């Protein structure tokens, strides 16, 4: 295995990795928000329902 750092051969490569990682993660988080929001809504409804049943 080579001991030469590849980033010395292409110094932009590490920046490219950082940008890809950052953008991909942020986009996926954005896409997941709708599902997460729905789950939180359902959980909130379930806990209200449970409290109501307990009261009854």
């Amino acid at each position, binding site marked *: *295995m*080579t001991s030469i750092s590849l980033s010395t051969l292409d110094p932009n490569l590490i920046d490219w990795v950082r940008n890809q990682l950052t953008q991909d993660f942020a986009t996926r988080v954005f896409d997941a928000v709708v599902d*997460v929001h729905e789950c939180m809504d359902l959980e909130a409804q379930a806990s209200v329902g*449970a409290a109501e049943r307990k009261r009854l």
Partner: protein
Amino acid sequence: MLLSRRRNLQTQAATVVSRIFSEKLLSLLDGDNRNAMLSLDGITLLADDRLDEEIAINHCSRRLKEQCDYELWCLTQRLARLIGVAHPTDTKNPVFPQTFAQALMEAIGSIEPNPADRLLVFKAFGPALLDIVPAVLTGINAALAARGIDIDVGDYYGRPVLTPERQSPAAATAQEIAANLELTATLKKILASAGHVLPESEAEREAATAKRALATTLQLPAFNNEKTAVPTWRGTLGDIPSGNQDAVEHQPANVRTLHIARRALQDKLTRDEQVISDIITVMFDRLLIDPRMPQELREIVARLQLPVLELALGDRSLLTQVHHPVRKLIDLVAEFGLTLGLDNDDESTVRSVENIIEGLVLSHRQLPDAFQLAFNRLDGFYYHHEEAAIQNDAKLRALEREEAAEFAGSQADREIALRLQNRSLPEPIIAFALGAWRAVIVNAYLRGGASGQPWKLALSTLDDLVRSVHPATEPTELRRLASTLPATIELLLNRADIVGDQSSLAADLFAELGRASALAIAGKWTEICGRVFAPSLDVLSTPSSVVSPSASLAAMGMACGDWIETRDDGIRRWRLNWITTILGTCVFKHYESGTTCNMRCDELGERLASGSVQRVRGLGLADEVLSGAFETVSRKVQHDGSVLAARSIGRSRLGPPSPVTAGRTANDPPIPLRRA
């Protein structure tokens, strides 16, 4: 708030990931050792809410690491190559899952100022992160591989690999829906023969229930007395002792709790409720004597009797849904005991299971999903115990060692062949390289893999050996090699503990090396006799792209802890306990007989596709005992029907026949039942 500000969340998440990545990268490049030492100045007290966030981030990072261990390892290796450093520790690794968890928490903090709500949103993101982070790492790995940044995947082998968690199926399969409908029909037949007439609308609703997603069946029982909301039997049930303070017929009271309950509830239950109560009673009678239910856990399981009866009286989905949480919980308790092989030394483990069940018993009336929560808690507890138990399994360790040696052997053969091929070498050198030195290289691989120092030293020594008899080598280098090589070889042979035939090969080598070196230094190359070594093509072939065994298993939709059923020698259920990290051998165990069966991953795939092996939900204990209970109660109902019929014949001289027994006689065949 979350929906309306999701664009901010995206921007913040990107900013924070980029910042943390850069900080860790700088720390790596500078060789910063700040984390290695602790000083009092660096220790600060965290506010409670901040501490909760730290705990949540750490917990989430651990789960993510378990989920994407292979992808993480590959990307870390690539990154290390890219910046020219050794594999970094977790705390310094810019792509360690903590980077993402931390970034998400900070991003949520930017849109949600309330700490409690922030934590709530972060936790709600947990399941999504388990998909997001592996996908991000896989994407970057693929992009870097496409740019030619390759790594030696073989180095991954031999690492302690975390067992992937078994996946819980998101939706019921067609097979399960069919089984649910069959159970519903069977229950209806039993109730009908007991005199219960199902109104048409109710029948339709029950059929629909079988198809409904499981979550909807977890709601609190819809009590049948709408005016009072709570049925009369519920109070009586609460008064029945379920502890083991009483003794009935030399048995602890908790084993007989349901029999006591049946007597107490006799006049409070409707006829169909009595049938359901009978089914649950017989189910527990069978369960508590089944050899698959470990003795140490029987009394704990017995604590479930009243909660399960109460649940079944209000919500029949336990009887008609094969994937009901109660069935899953019962199977899991049995599986837990079987796989861990509990004995008297495991008191704390048993006590932990007891606490989980006790929590359920106390909370089932208030919590709609108490059984599911207990299942989740036990599953999480079990997962970590199982990991430790399997790590200690001597047979599995031996199998791993055997496969590691096989893999190291093939790696060694390839490296030797690459160095010796098409060269004219004295026979003792070839024999030594293929014999004793191969053993040294295998040993070196097992000690540190292809990136370890022993491996590099063993191969560079072999290079020196070949160069010491090569005409292109400079005379000064030949003299250096002649003086140092025998000592190096001897040292490495001793370190690898090479004995027997291999040491005689070494003796031949040293004799030949002394002669050949003298001739080489004198420039008499033609007097060094040799033959051209030609390795077989198989040895030289480049290993095909290696796929992680866990990933292959996941591609089949399976993971350790899953169960299969074979029918070669009677119906047998096997648990997938382990998959080896090198060759991907799946190790299955049949607990009733203690038999173990090993199957390669590809063979498992073929057998699953051909149907000779079938994936099943679990141990199947709850299904079996319930099915048995259905049969027993069906016979009892028919017996009661015949007795009533006989009585009504006697009474018929006085009045019309009872509607309960109309149309059935004592000679009618029993209601046909099939196993779920």
